[in-house]
């Protein structure tokens, strides 16, 4: 039999495993940068599940495909067809593929902005060394850069293809840069509006629908009015109508600033151009201010 008086084992704990962090703590700048990078990646589905990559990647492919085809035609058959410039001018390309851009913005803006508000995870962000306004601006920036990338990618393809096809580089570069500025403006307008709508309506499905309604209906209405106004010899009306849709607004600005090829029948001239520029500025500033105001209303829990 075992000895009845076995001594109880004793022991001490040296290390449970919990270690407080004593290293370097990066400041708000680094936090903002990493938030920006993550947001940008999420817009394209990187860093998320496979399912969420399908839509953005499909849209990216959809907007690049025509550019690739155009470049191929230009390079291969440019001389045979006597082409001295791009088949589709830079400024027109964006207008033609606007549906893809609209769907992208409508799908990704709510995913980026509405979700945090609806599920209150915003409190996790704000409990870090990150100011409220910084969070808002960084989110907006991620969306803006994502849209800008989407719009500029095919333009880049066209530009490189143009160079490969021996189009005059000086002229091409000027046109391309002008289009890039236009792309930036468009991205700012679209992301500002979309972010504001997503922040106001926190349900994702509703935000998607609202953004699409605003973008698509505005363009269709403007196009209809411009068509009729031009037909009826009312150029002022046609030009002013162009203010009411981001796409026509940017197109008008491109024509006024850079003499680009117009995509609408009523591009602004002279003083109307100033009105266009002012409107763009006002809309962008108003969306940012609106966003900041909206987030100030968020309660903690």
């Amino acid at each position: 039999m075992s000895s009845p008086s076995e001594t109880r084992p004793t022991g001490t704990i040296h290390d449970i495993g919990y270690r407080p962090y004593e290293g370097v703590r990066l400041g708000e700048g680094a936090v903002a940068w990493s938030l920006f990078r993550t947001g940008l990646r999420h817009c394209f589905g990187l860093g998320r599940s496979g399912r969420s990559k399908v839509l953005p990647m499909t849209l990216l492919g959809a907007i690049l495909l025509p550019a690739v085809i155009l470049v191929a035609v230009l390079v291969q058959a440019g001389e045979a067809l006597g082409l001295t410039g791009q088949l589709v001018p830079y400024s027109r390309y964006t207008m033609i593929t606007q549906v893809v851009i609209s769907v992208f913005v409508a799908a990704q803006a709510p995913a980026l902005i509405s979700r945090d508000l609806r599920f209150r995870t915003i409190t996790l962000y704000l409990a870090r060394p990150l100011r409220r306004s910084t969070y808002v601006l960084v989110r907006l920036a991620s969306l803006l850069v994502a849209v800008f990338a989407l719009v500029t990618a095919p333009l880049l393809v066209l530009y490189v293809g143009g160079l490969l096809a021996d189009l005059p580089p000086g002229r091409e570069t000027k046109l391309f840069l002008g289009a890039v500025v236009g792309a930036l403006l468009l991205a700012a307008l679209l992301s500002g509006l979309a972010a504001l709508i997503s922040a106001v309506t926190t349900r994702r499905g509703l935000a998607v629908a609202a953004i699409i309604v605003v973008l698509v209906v505005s363009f269709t209405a403007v196009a209809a009015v411009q068509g009729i106004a031009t037909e009826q010899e009312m150029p002022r009306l046609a030009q002013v109508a162009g203010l009411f849709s981001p796409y026509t607004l940017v197109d008008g600005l491109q024509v006024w600033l850079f003499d680009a090829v117009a995509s609408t029948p009523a591009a602004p001239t002279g003083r109307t151009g100033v009105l266009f520029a002012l409107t763009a500025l006002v809309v962008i500033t108003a969306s940012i201010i609106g966003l900041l105001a909206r987030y100030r209303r968020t309660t903690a829990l």
Partner: protein
Amino acid sequence: MTAPVNADVTRAARRTGTGTGGLVNTTVAWLGLRSLFGRRRGILLFALPLVLLALAVLVRVLIEGSAAAPDILYQLGLVVVVPLVALIATTGVLSSEIDDGSVVYLLAKPLSRLTIVISKLLVAFGCVLVFAAVPLLVAGLILRWDLPRLGIGFAVGGLAGGLTYCTLFAFASVLTRHAVVVGLVYVLIWEGLLGGLLDGIRWLSVTWWSAAITDEITEGPPLVEKMGVTYAIAATVVVIIGATWLASHKLRGYSYTADE
């Protein structure tokens, strides 16, 4: 409340209900209506026809009886307003509940799934009627007072298209939680972008069917070519019945713990 359970008599007596039999359940419909207009989706639904009507008034003020009237009604009305109203109404009534799981309260009842789907669809149909078909009629009359056929044609075509869209989006809502985006991609990219480029897609495009029906009634310059109205009507009916049945079938197999 604490009556013993073996009183089958009382249980049977409790069964005579309001609207549990038949294809339409008024409570489901009422809930759908509240769901749509108790929240902010309702505002969007008002905005769309307002734009259409404002545009019609604007054009009418500027021009007298132009040939552009059918174009506007087509481009803005049939192509944009009708599908968007159908999308917003149907997803508001069905998709948001499936998305957050509160549809389980409707499903844990002795109601046939077909009844649930149809009752909700009726609300969506009503919205299409009020926010798309009637505004189309009014816009048509504003633009061409002398040609009522225009307004009526677009209203009927819009109604047919809208009903078809509703059933399609209802099916999409039951299939996936991202029904809104799927519906948008279908309408804008499949029917819009691709349909404009490739001919074959037109046979499968709801907007084309509704345009064909409109043509038949307005007897004006045709909006779409090469599509017989019989095909359009048949396709519409088939899709409406098929999508409704499919949606209810899929709803029978709804599982609420399966997360994506």
